[in-house]
């Protein structure tokens, strides 16, 4: 099953998405974070903004994933995790983080990023590390989940790790104010 998703992910990456210059993307993201740090002067507030930004991007990305693939509805968290890693991350960042560290109730897992392209050309000043800035704090979300970075290379860890925890399943419903 995992292999099938890997193939889908690679096919979409190779044939179906428009690419943008990696450095342009990285520099733009970096400058955006710099601007947020200047505006808020508080790293926790910056984390919050990046998280909000990520959520808003995520809900659009998931539409994009579904429109470019013929994926069925994911049955459970394990399948969801595979799709996020092998299709989602591959499609948008050309990486496929490994899925690991499942909790016993299968509601919680980690995505391990050996190589996070957003980190290229980037170094955090010591104060940012100390005060808890999570630079790449823009993970994408599909279900109502809690997603947080728990390890980051830029903070001296050996890999970057994103922890995902399912809080509740969302029923499909029409958003408020939407006909």
């Amino acid at each position, binding site marked *: 099953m995992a292999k099938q998703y890997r193939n889908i992910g690679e096919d979409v990456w190779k044939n179906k998405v428009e690419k943008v210059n990696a450095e342009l993307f990285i520099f*733009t993201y970096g*400058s955006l974070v*710099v601007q947020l740090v200047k505006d808020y002067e508080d790293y926790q507030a910056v984390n919050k903004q990046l998280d909000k930004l990520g959520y808003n991007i995520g809900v659009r990305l998931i539409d994009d994933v579904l429109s470019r693939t013929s994926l069925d509805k994911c049955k459970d968290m394990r399948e969801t995790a595979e799709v996020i890693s092998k299709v989602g991350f591959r499609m948008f960042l050309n990486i496929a983080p490994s899925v690991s560290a499942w909790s016993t109730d299968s509601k919680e897992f980690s995505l391990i990023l050996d190589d996070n392209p957003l980190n290229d050309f980037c170094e955090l000043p010591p104060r940012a590390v100390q005060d808890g800035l999570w630079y790449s704090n823009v993970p994408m979300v599909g279900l109502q989940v809690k997603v947080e970075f728990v390890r980051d290379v830029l903070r001296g860890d050996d890999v970057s790790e994103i922890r995902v925890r399912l809080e509740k399943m969302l029923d499909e419903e029409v*958003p408020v104010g939407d006909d």
Partner: protein
Amino acid sequence: MASGWTELPDDNEVLEQVYVKLENIGFRVGRRLAERYAPVGRRLTDTLDVVKFVCKDMWMVLFNRQVDNLKTNHRGIYVLQDNKFKWFLRMSSNHGGAAAARRAQPYTWLPCGIIRGVLDSFGVNAVVSPETLGLPQCTFQIKVVANE
């Protein structure tokens, strides 16, 4: 929450702030791109060279194409015209062309900053302003500020 279109705020002061921020972000991106892609073994000797570098090399990096037309009055004004500005390609509006162009304007502020950042890296001090006559066409006017 996930609505596809956000209304532009009517408040000009808010828009002005958005402009300043996006332009600043762009400026920093431009500075870095210029360092990363500065030509090796070819010197940019005058302002026209630098502007051509923006039209060709930089536009390729940004939008995978080159600027369609470059005009200059040889007295410090350069007009870059892109007939298929990439970020406008999939935009439309049910309120007619002028309204669409107005709503599309914020999308030009980041590139304006990028252009200014690149020019600044090569020692050219300039003001960059965008203009849209009809999507997806877009022009960027570079006005060089005389160095004392």
